[in-house]
């Protein structure tokens, strides 16, 4: 149950933005939470509700609808780290991390999916995590789901391009279902990735964070934490600099003294922060290691008639039928320009394809590529990481298999041609017979064009302190007051979209912290 409106009560909390910092400063809190994405926001709210003095620190600014940009290029430059141009080395893959109040929730498609039981069984047995079964986490999923109003996407806002996916799956006998999302009053504008102008998406900046402020939490934006202050066994705060939105120019210095520190800066930034803090919490040598992704491959299908692609929720139908095999299939929409990037051809051929955009539908597959493991480490300066990661050959075959299945679903749904977007395959496939060539293709990892925003495991949980960075409640091994709450603590990739799970884990972590302090 949410509290009365912020403006109608004597709110104890506050928010500070870049223009308000006029000098160096020091703050005190019971708990400082670094990062305002889904996990940091849940921890902040739950601890504020318990009466603790919580200070939430975010490097990015709050975005209002006036600050959103519909142009995908410009929107990414404003809302993502490294201007949206971050990528892996090894196998090239763009990877996207947000820098804004609310973190990824501001610019993701609001998919809230619970991983199946076998994922947690695997985590429990492989990583000595006895209390991290699906049953253990279900009450935490329920609590978050109730708060955000998570519910399956209604048919009224699916739109044709999502429904075609359902029709194709039905025709082939694959299961499919509407995606549960944290939205209220969606109108199907399909603008999740550039900021929800209709304000339907319950991103953290308009849900958990204002509720936490009503309970007294303080939110300081435009603060870049550069160092966790502590010794080998105990931390006492963080310090860093005030940075201007977009330019990153530093203005003033700050320090926050706190009894307890929660790092929720994201799977890329948290390990870099620990490395920059004297290699903190790294007796296991696992900080920055074990990096995994859900790489995504997009496939485009062209239908005989216009599919009204502008209308419909961004990603609102999916199939979980292939999770055990290692991939998840889902619908997708973004700004037309961003989607057109994967259009094949050049010259008149490219223009012909672009002219087909009103008849074009994009679906994608995300893979559980457990065999493809990389690392994150700090650069010589700054907090942007060097990301090493290479796609394993067997995982490349897995992704190609997913592309093949998507192609079959397209034809089953009535597509007249499919563009698989894989180097070495025909640019256009016009029949199911032609689609068989995909299955026979000798794929190499570098033939795939992929992107990912699902990143995991760089500070993984493990019951054995020698093999992981945090324990089952996200507390760094060897510390009693340093916690990590982002997707870095996942021991393996979760097979489905991670936001719901990281919030459920954060909810559990907040309960444990409450008991501790």
């Amino acid at each position: 149950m949410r509290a009365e409106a912020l403006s109608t009560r004597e709110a104890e909390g506050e928010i500070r933005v870049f223009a308000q910092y006029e000098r160096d400063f020091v703050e005190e809190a019971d708990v400082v939470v670094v990062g305002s994405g889904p996990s940091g926001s849940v921890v902040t709210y739950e601890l504020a509700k318990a009466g603790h003095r919580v200070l939430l620190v975010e490097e990015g600014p709050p975005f209002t609808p006036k600050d959103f940009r519909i142009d995908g290029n410009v929107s990414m430059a404003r809302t993502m780290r490294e201007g949206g141009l971050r990528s892996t080395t090894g196998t090239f893959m763009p990877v996207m991390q947000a820098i804004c109040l609310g973190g990824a929730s501001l610019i993701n498609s609001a998919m809230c999916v619970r991983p199946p039981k076998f994922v947690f069984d695997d985590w429990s047995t492989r990583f000595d995590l006895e209390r991290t079964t699906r049953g253990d986490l279900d009450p935490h999923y329920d609590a978050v789901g109730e708060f955000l109003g998570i519910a399956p996407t209604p048919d009224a806002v699916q739109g044709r391009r999502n429904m075609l996916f359902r029709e194709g799956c039905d025709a082939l006998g694959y299961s499919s279902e509407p995606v549960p999302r944290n939205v209220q009053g969606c109108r199907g504008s399909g603008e999740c990735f550039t900021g929800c102008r209709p304000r339907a998406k319950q991103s953290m900046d308009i849900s958990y964070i204002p509720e936490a402020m009503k309970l007294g939490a303080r939110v300081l934006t435009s603060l870049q934490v550069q160092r966790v202050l502590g010794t080998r066994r105990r931390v006492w705060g963080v310090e860093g600099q005030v940075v201007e939105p977009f330019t990153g120019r530093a203005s003033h210095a700050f320090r926050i003294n706190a009894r307890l520190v929660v790092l929720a800066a994201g799977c890329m930034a948290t390990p870099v922060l620990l490395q920059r803090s004297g290699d903190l919490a790294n007796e296991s040598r696992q900080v920055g290691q074990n990096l995994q992704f859900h790489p995504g491959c997009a496939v485009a299908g062209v239908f005989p008639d216009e599919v009204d692609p502008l209308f419909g929720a961004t990603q609102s139908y999916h199939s979980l039928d292939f999770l055990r095999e290692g991939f998840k299939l889902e619908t997708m929409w973004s700004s037309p320009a961003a989607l057109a990037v994967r259009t094949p051809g050049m010259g008149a051929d490219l223009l012909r394809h672009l002219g087909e955009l009103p008849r074009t539908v994009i679906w994608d597959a995300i893979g559980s590529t457990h065999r493809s493991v990389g690392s994150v480490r700090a650069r010589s300066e700054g907090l942007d990481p060097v990301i090493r990661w290479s796609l394993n050959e067997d995982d490349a075959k897995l992704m190609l298999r997913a592309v093949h299945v998507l192609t079959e679903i397209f034809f089953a749904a009535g597509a007249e041609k499919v563009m698989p977007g894989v180097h070495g395959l025909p640019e256009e496939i016009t029949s199911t017979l032609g689609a068989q060539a995909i299955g026979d293709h000798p794929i190499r990892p570098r033939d795939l064009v992929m992107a990912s925003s699902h990143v995991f495991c760089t500070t993984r949980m493990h019951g054995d302190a020698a093999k992981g960075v945090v324990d089952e409640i996200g507390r760094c091994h060897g510390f009693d007051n340093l916690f990590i709450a982002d997707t870095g603590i996942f021991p393996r990739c979760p097979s489905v979209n991670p936001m719901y799970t990281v919030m459920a884990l954060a909810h559990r972590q907040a309960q444990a912290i409450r008991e501790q302090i």
Partner: protein
Amino acid sequence: MFILVALIVLLAFAFVRLRVGYPVPDRPLVILTRAEAAFLAAAAATFFPALDEDGRAASKVLRPGEAVDLPGYMDDYLGQLPKRQRFQIRALLMLFEQSSVVFPARGLGAFKRFSSMSPAQQRHVMHAWAESRLYLRRVAFIALKALLVLGYLGDDTNLRALGLAPWEIESPVIETDLIYPSIGARPEQIAFTLEDLAAPGVDARSAPPLRGVEERT
């Protein structure tokens, strides 16, 4: 002495190759050099030509690349990027503009700068990058193409022609609009008051009209 002369000749060649003979852009640019702007204009004409190879209109719907101010778009876009990424993109543009030194085109003038080649040579050069056996060349091509397509469709005229222009949406005022100022502003500059708050459950005005869709049975 010979080394010194060779060095001077090399520097002179590099200067001419990198700086001399580029046209003045149609509009003043803040970040892009003349060379970068010339490359973008040439690349736009290659990727989005007015005519196909048989001399017919390449598209009945979309404007040719020459009619879209790609250099201007890119100049604005680069201005919003962090320094390192801005440098990377500019290096990418120059890589393609000067690549004929290492990967020459076909026929006479095979070593010319990309922006000075004939349209047929420009097409050949780009196809060679797209289909290269060298992974990094293909990656560079994908990155360049992404930039060009985003810029080309960043032009509203093209999106409108496709019927894909963004919705007109007036965002409802919600409670956080009373406490979050726009980026760069101070809280005192927030213009909204309690009276502006949308009633709970009110949809965005002018949002896409909901379509009738058959319920699943």
